[in-house]
């Protein structure tokens, strides 16, 4: 079945809300507006206002409310209109959701999904274009998921909703309308499993969320030039499936990591460190990272383009690890 990323998320939540009464959706405009990006289309009509809760624009308040509801045994899904606004809820996410199980010696759990789009879309400006996954990955107690395809989005969101831990589920505005094949019927994808999205043996490219689409595009171009890139999508950023990445690196000996987030202390730095620790002797070249630039996202189109990884930069990185001029 060919569906959009948006529809995949919609199906995942709808199926889980039908399956489990404890699951409810809360956030800004999730009800009558049908979601700022129409992900919850039809939900308030099917599940009613009791399970599809429009909130005021108070991220700390409603995220904290969801954490409390999860502590009491419910299974909230918090929709952040974008993860930029999640910054207002960071106290609840970092100090409460991530730690309550540990602080209570396992007496309390926080089965919670916080989802919404991260990363840049087109010219939304500095406060609406951030890739903050490294922030969340840094915090013990959180799991972080960032699927790139409709198939992965659906299977991983269903797993996230069933998971007994707090999950940060990062989507992307530019992915919502992308389409892909999705299995018919019920399926889930385990959290913590990477997938090789394209086989190859010359170079490994690790990329996630919408950067995966960029990596696949470049891999296609390179194939016609005789360079066979293997593209690995971690899909889950924490816990990271390092084994699949290392296996690929052992085969290719070369690694390029593509991420949209800021370069300094970005997630790719962690992946590179882990790969160096486990596969240093297999590497034929230094690992090269392609990242967003360390600037607030500019509004002007040429500057925004300059701040985000593109084909040219990914190709240049591949050339570097292949020692090609």
């Amino acid at each position, binding site marked *: 079945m060919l569906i959009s990323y948006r529809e995949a998320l919609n199906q995942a939540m709808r199926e889980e809300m039908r399956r489990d009464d404890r699951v*409810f959706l809360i956030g800004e405009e999730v009800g009558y507006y049908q979601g700022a990006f129409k992900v919850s289309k039809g939900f308030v009509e099917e599940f009613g206002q*009791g399970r599809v809760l429009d*909130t*005021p624009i*108070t991220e*700390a*308040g*409603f*995220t*904290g*409310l*969801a*954490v*409390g*509801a*999860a*502590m*009491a*045994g*419910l299974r909230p899904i918090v929709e952040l209109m974008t993860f930029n606004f999640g910054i207002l809820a960071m*106290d*609840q996410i970092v*100090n*409460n959701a991530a730690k*309550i*199980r*540990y*602080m*209570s*010696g*396992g*007496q*309390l*759990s926080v089965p919670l999904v916080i989802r919404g789009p991260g990363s840049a879309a087109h010219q939304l400006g500095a406060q609406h274009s951030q890739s903050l996954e490294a922030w969340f990955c840094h915090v*013990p*107690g959180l*799991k972080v998921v960032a699927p790139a395809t409709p198939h992965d989005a659906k299977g991983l969101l269903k797993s996230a909703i069933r998971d*007994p*831990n707090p999950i940060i589920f990062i989507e992307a505005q530019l992915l919502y309308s992308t389409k892909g094949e999705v299995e018919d019927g019920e399926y889930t994808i385990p959290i913590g499993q990477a997938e090789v999205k394209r086989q190859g043996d010359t170079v490994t490219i690790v990329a996630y969320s919408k950067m995966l689409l960029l990596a696949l595009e470049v891999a296609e171009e390179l194939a016609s030039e005789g360079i066979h890139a293997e593209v690995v999508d971690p899909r889950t950023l924490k816990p990271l499936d390092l084994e699949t990445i290392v296996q690929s690196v052992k085969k290719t000996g070369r690694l390029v990591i593509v991420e949209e987030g800021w370069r300094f202390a970005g997630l790719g730095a962690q992946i590179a460190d882990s790969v160096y620790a486990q596969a240093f002797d297999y590497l034929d070249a230094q690992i090269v990272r392609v990242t967003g630039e360390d600037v607030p996202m500019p509004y002007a189109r040429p500057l925004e383009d300059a701040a985000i990884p593109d084909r040219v930069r990914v190709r240049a990185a591949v050339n570097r690890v292949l020692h090609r001029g």
Partner: protein
Amino acid sequence: MHLVDADRKFMGGYAIVGGHLPLATGLAFAVTYQKRDRVVLCFFGEGAVPSGQAHEAFNLAALWKLPVIFICENNRYAMGTPITRGIALYADLADKARAHGIQAETVDGMDVLAVRALMQRVVNKVRTDPQPYFIEAVTYRFMGHSMADPAHGHYRTKEEVDAERKKDPLVLLRQTILEQRVGTDADLKRLEHEVGEIVAAAVKFADESPFPDPSALEEDVYTE
């Protein structure tokens, strides 16, 4: 801080001022969602009242008529900052909740019987007619803010602390019991002895309990 007894529905003490008011509101949301006959009691000091998270919680609780009783123990000092230097409208904290449409009352937090009567009435009200409620209990902190803070310090005088100590709720309740002949001095001494033994046993239990083994370091970061 961080004490929890989930079996007794003591849902924890939290160390971020104001950050647990949304949690309590969420627990109350779950009560409503699961149609349970429960109320949530949420304690905090007056230092939490001006925080943004408190007001976000007040608004959501009022908006959705959630059965949570916000209990502000106003001891007049947020660590070392007196309320008069921390809250613009400090004279009536209950007004902060009323501004969100929450019923609110102020009680003498040093008067045990007054607090008891108020709580019985408010808990019954919230149980039968779910809605948030705000109680300001005016009290005082006899000790320092923490182990590192002496009983007074640079921010208040010994005379002030000594004067407040005369209103110690345990001292006042003792007087009331004797005056109204509810109990004798011997009864009270026996009670104090019993309570002392319970506390001593708890301290002994804590002292004698082993520290966790370092191998437990990563337990309960995640659950299966």
